[in-house]
């Protein structure tokens, strides 16, 4: 998916990539990345938390105008309250 973002930028469409995997995003190196240290699948926050979802979206959109160099990653300030870990094959937390 980061590959797609790179291709779009070359064709004149600006992209912002909202990632929960910092090392995964670093490898593919999308043009603009907002790293959100949440469980994978909670890129925009918690269910029903409209204000958090809005804030992450607004921050992601702001990168379109603030990032001056391709391959910039910005870390979203967040503190996900419950512990989370790697869960392969759709295993559920908790």
């Amino acid at each position, binding site marked *: *998916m*980061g*590959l*797609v*973002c*790179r*291709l*779009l*930028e*070359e*064709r*004149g*469409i*600006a*992209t*912002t990539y*909202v990632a929960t*995997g*910092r*090392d*995964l*995003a670093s*490898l*593919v*190196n*999308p*043009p603009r990345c907002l790293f959100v240290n949440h*469980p*994978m*699948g*909670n*890129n*925009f*926050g*918690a*269910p*029903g938390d*409209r204000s958090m*979802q*809005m804030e992450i*979206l*607004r921050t992601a*959109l702001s990168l*379109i*105008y603030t*990032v*001056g*160099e*391709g*391959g910039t990653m910005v870390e979203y300030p967040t*503190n*996900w309250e419950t512990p*989370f*870990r*790697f*869960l*392969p*094959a*759709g*295993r559920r937390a908790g």
Partner: protein
Amino acid sequence: MNQPIKYVDELNEYYGSLGHPPYQWTINDSAPLYRLDRPLNECTVSLLTSGGVSRTCELPFDPDARNDHRLDEVANGTPEDDFQIHDSYYDHTDADRDINCIFPLQRLRELAEDGEIGALANRLWSGFMGRIYNRSKVLEESGPAFAEELERDGVDILIAAPS
């Protein structure tokens, strides 16, 4: 305080334990950047997720897909409760309850109504699920075809939500 998960190490170990060959991670040292002059309140914005999200009227995604280049269009007025998620790659319990966790179309509708963004594109997108091993097909076929669809909708900005 949760430390960022080391997905690369975890995935290498996990897939190795299943007997899969090592995944050849894409490593890019530099990245292109398109400088957008148009202000946000005049921009058309679209959204793409790779989280196995489909309309309830569509077939589910294959949760264990490999090299699946399927890409679904999602009309921008689709109700929030009209989605299903099939992807074994992550825990989508929260996104099952509130699709905006991974595919924030209702929040984007609100940003458009408030005039913060110019418009939400007519079509939003779900596809390019992970574990695509034939990357040249993305670069040569499915990626450019997607770009043409976005151009058709006059999209200025794409928000990408991988999972």
